[in-house]
């Protein structure tokens, strides 16, 4: 059957008919089938639900939909029942029949699947009342829970491609650029460059052809918002790219996505196919004369390919190495032609801005940072997941209200924002508003939106070493400061962590950092010293203690600690004996155990296994 929509009004009519056939009052059940929930068994939950759905013949009562990521990954698999927005967590396939019979048929809420407030022990029924969701502003990410990413009709029915409709029917390319400029949208990939300005320069650049690229080579450890957007709502990214291509004058687009994101690749591939079938991609889109083809390019696993020029080199089939950007890629990018590259989240913001208006978007956020930002909240945090917040919200609110604070009653120590190129911010900066410029002033950055929370057990020197080692492995090795500098930096940090630090090492680290900032070829080397500089700035005394006293204040660095058993507290339960891999702990049941330091490999197994805090670290 030919589904091709030939005109703009045709799309409008199609949306209306889709909307009327799915009358709003009909109930729906959305199972989060994002990668996180799938890992927790969401696929089985969907199968179980569908089976009972069939068996009980509930077709007319409720529809079941496997959607993209809802964000609350800590409690997956998640099930949300609309229109009431009843939210069930940690759902197992066994719960399927109860959900359908009790909740759907009888309207009874199942208590044990509800969210329980850790402090008040109160059960919360509705999604929007759960603190994790309550303080978010889910502008971009909100649609994820409403649609099946494999169905273009779902996206169109919730108002998808309305932005494109508006642009093609009534706005000139220059007008689109003007809207994006007035909205104040800044690039979500890390640099925070104003998107409208970039588009404008690209439009004005000469050249035989132009390109739009979506950067989905998300490589920061712990960050997965781009992945979840592509998996859960690929059409929003595609729509953004079509609008961008129209504004800039591009006829070809690429999505550069990590090969490690199979579900994102699959859903995107399907989405592109369906969009083509509907005439939303290809030649003469909706009869407007606009041509655009979007291709998927899967990355080969190099972190540096997230850098725009390296990404373009890789797209051309060359080694993914960056080049100098004295001539910008919007003037000479892919195949030396003007190229506009934006990140997944930036593209996904575009249709919303067009649809809701620049003024509406600009009313969200702060002076210099408009709109919302999705963060992946990970590390030592109760509510691990993806959160979308209005710019300007404080770190404290994200971590303690949305994130639910630090698990195990531990004390908050630092939060690393912006991935490996970002910085660690201490407790006294928790009230800092999240905003491109303020984070940068504080020595960190927005980056692509990673947010790693650390507690008192984390050693900040070790943390810096972790990130520097990551970057050392990922440095492409083209320029001297990044290649050699990171190698030396890793060696110095390693030496400090192992208690071999020298008094001049801190000065050397600072000098090295400055050289890398001033002379590195690309953003990777230029921002690589951030983890070191920010920890030196806020946790300098930890470095001093490592070097002068040869001690790790967080009692983490293996070479600087020793383990022993507190005879007062030890109950002789034997839990530590079982986990010790080298038989360093001996003792009879119900008698105080002993730990042989000679044999101990400091794996921390006993420390974590002991329920009575009897394992001491000094």
């Amino acid at each position, binding site marked *: 059957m030919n589904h091709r929509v030939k005109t703009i009004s045709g799309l409008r009519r199609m949306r209306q008919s889709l909307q009327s056939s799915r009358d709003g009052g009909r109930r729906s059940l959305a199972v989060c089938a994002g990668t996180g929930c799938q890992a927790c068994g969401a696929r089985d939950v969907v199968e179980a639900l569908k089976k009972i759905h069939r068996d009980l013949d509930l077709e007319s009562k409720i529809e079941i939909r496997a959607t993209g990521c809802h964000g609350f990954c800590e409690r997956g698999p998640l099930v949300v029942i609309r229109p009431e927005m009843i939210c069930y967590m940690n759902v197992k396939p066994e719960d399927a029949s109860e959900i359908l019979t009790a909740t759907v048929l009888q309207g009874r809420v199942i208590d044990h699947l509800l969210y329980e407030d850790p402090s008040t022990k109160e059960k919360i029924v509705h999604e929007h009342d759960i603190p994790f969701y309550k303080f978010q502003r889910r502008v971009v990410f909100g649609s994820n829970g409403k649609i099946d990413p494999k169905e273009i009709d779902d996206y169109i029915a919730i108002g998808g491609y309305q932005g494109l409709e508006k642009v093609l029917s009534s706005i000139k390319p220059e007008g689109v650029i003007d809207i994006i400029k007035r909205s104040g949208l800044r690039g979500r990939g890390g640099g925070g460059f104003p998107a409208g300005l970039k588009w404008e320069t690209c439009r004005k650049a000469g050249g035989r052809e132009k390109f739009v690229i979506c950067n989905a080579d998300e490589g920061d450890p712990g960050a997965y918002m781009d992945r979840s957007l592509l998996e859960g709502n690929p059409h929003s990214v595609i729509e953004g790219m079509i609008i961008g291509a129209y504004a800039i004058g591009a006829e070809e687009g690429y999505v550069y996505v990590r090969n490690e994101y199979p579900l994102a690749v699959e859903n995107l591939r399907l989405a592109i196919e369906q969009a083509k079938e509907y005439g939303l991609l290809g030649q003469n889109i909706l009869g407007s004369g606009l041509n655009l083809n979007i291709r998927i390019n899967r990355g080969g696993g190099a972190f540096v390919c997230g850098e725009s020029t390296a990404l373009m080199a890789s797209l051309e089939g060359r080694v993914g190495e960056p080049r100098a950007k004295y001539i910008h890629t919007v003037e000479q990018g892919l*195949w030396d032609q003007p190229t506009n590259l934006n990140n997944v989240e930036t593209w996904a913001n575009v249709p919303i801005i067009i649809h809701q208006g620049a003024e509406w978007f600009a009313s969200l956020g702060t002076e210099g940072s408009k709109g919302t930002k999705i963060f992946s909240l990970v590390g030592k945090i109760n509510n691990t997941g993806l959160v979308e917040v209005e710019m300007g919200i404080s770190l404290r609110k994200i971590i303690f209200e949305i994130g639910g604070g630090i698990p195990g009653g531990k004390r908050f120590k630092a939060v690393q924002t912006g991935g490996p190129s970002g910085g660690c911010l201490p407790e006294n900066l928790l009230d800092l508003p999240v905003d491109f410029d303020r984070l940068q002033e504080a020595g960190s950055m927005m980056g692509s939106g990673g947010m790693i929370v650390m507690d008192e057990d984390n050693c900040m020197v070790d943390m810096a070493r972790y990130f520097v080692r990551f970057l050392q492995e990922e440095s492409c090795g083209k320029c001297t400061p990044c290649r050699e500098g990171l190698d030396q930096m890793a060696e110095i940090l390693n030496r400090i962590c192992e208690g071999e630090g020298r008094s001049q090492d801190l000065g050397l680290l600072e000098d090295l950092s400055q050289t890398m900032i001033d002379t590195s070829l690309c953003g990777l080397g230029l921002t690589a010293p951030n983890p070191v500089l920010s920890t030196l700035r806020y946790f300098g005394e930890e470095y001093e203690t490592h070097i002068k006293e040869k001690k790790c204040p967080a009692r983490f660095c293996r070479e600087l600690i020793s383990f022993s058993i507190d005879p007062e507290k030890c109950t002789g339960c034997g839990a530590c004996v079982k986990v010790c891999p080298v038989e360093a702990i001996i003792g009879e049941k119900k008698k105080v155990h002993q730990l042989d330091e000679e044999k101990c490999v400091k794996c921390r197994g006993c420390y974590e296994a002991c329920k009575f805090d009897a394992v001491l670290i000094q």
Partner: protein
Amino acid sequence: MMFTLTINNKQVKVRENATLLEIIRKMGISIPTLCYHPDLVPHGSCRLCTVEVSKNGKTRMVTACNFPVQEKIEVKTHSDRVIQLRRTLVELLLARCPEVPVIQNLARDLRIEKGRFHAPHPENDCILCGLCIRTCNEIVGAHAIGFSRRGTLKKVGTPFEVDSDQCIACGACEFICPTGAIKMEMDRARKIKLSGTGMQRPCRYALLGLVDFMVCSNGFECWRCEVDQGMEDRFKTHPAFAIKPAKNLQPLSVAGFIFHPDLFYSDEHVWAKPMDQRIRLGIDGMASVLAVEADSLILPSVGSSLRRKETLAEVVSGHKRVIIPSPLSGTVSAVNRDVVESPNLAWRDPYRRGWLVMIGPDPSEDIFRLYSGENAKVWFAQQANHLAGLCSKRKRNVCEGQSVRKTVRKHWDEFVEQLFHQGEEVLHGK
């Protein structure tokens, strides 16, 4: 256009498309470089040529080798900050290659007595400047070596570190290497055989295209060879740098139409490129203008047999259409789906992404019947100038800017006439 800028408090006027390093060197100011060579595209990897550039009160550090000059910038080549950075960079390189004289000399010039960094592999002698690789690509055109791995583990070598058929053992990489890290292995050079013939390989001058053909009788010991001695006297440099064979393969623009010297061309305005057993065909830079507004491009199907002068492609553009005949016969073994999907790709990138079909594996006609080398260049230039002359007496660049669409609409019939019905008689008749 000329730019006025200040370098070390001295005002200079320079031409627009110069790099900062060229100007700095011309002024007699010495700044160190390791990865720069005037005959190669700047790489900007060693970072030693970093200088301080201020404009509108903003100061930043840039590498002079690839920084295009700008109006009213203030440049400082030896400020305290620059010197400090340069010292740290040299210290880093010294930690990588402590035994390499070039680096030791740089350290001495910058008064570094002992580097502050630990040298884990003191025997290392490659500074990863990439001069060898770029010479092989940009000067020799052999593309035999490249970088593999990354970070400090990065290294220069042939693909998969096996002996490469691409290497012609010309020795240009050894010649350019500033640290002596690359050494010719005469035994291996001798082993390079002429492919298929089992004959010993010709000498490096033959492979560089300087002498017609010569099989070495000196066991590839060039220092014994009189040809080699003669060439060395003549060029005073490595022969590859004197001839630069790769430069002849760069695409040219003739009256705005792009010409790729390494392809075969035909009167049908179709280029051909032998690829292994097959031949790739596409429309040339001139015919490609007809595809600028193409609505569809109809190509033969895979498996069909294509005969010379039969339809290779049909370009449909609005109410106009044109048939492009094939210059060769053969079985169609592949069709470019990208160009079918977006037909104006044949205009946007006619020689690469916009190719049309592959024929083979055994094309029945001889590709050498087509224009190649110098013949192709002459033919192309004549045709291109003529075509440009059709729409403008001043032979303006037809392909430039937004006007190309208008030009093609206006001159469609003349273009088609000139491109497809005239060529044969005119050229073959003379």
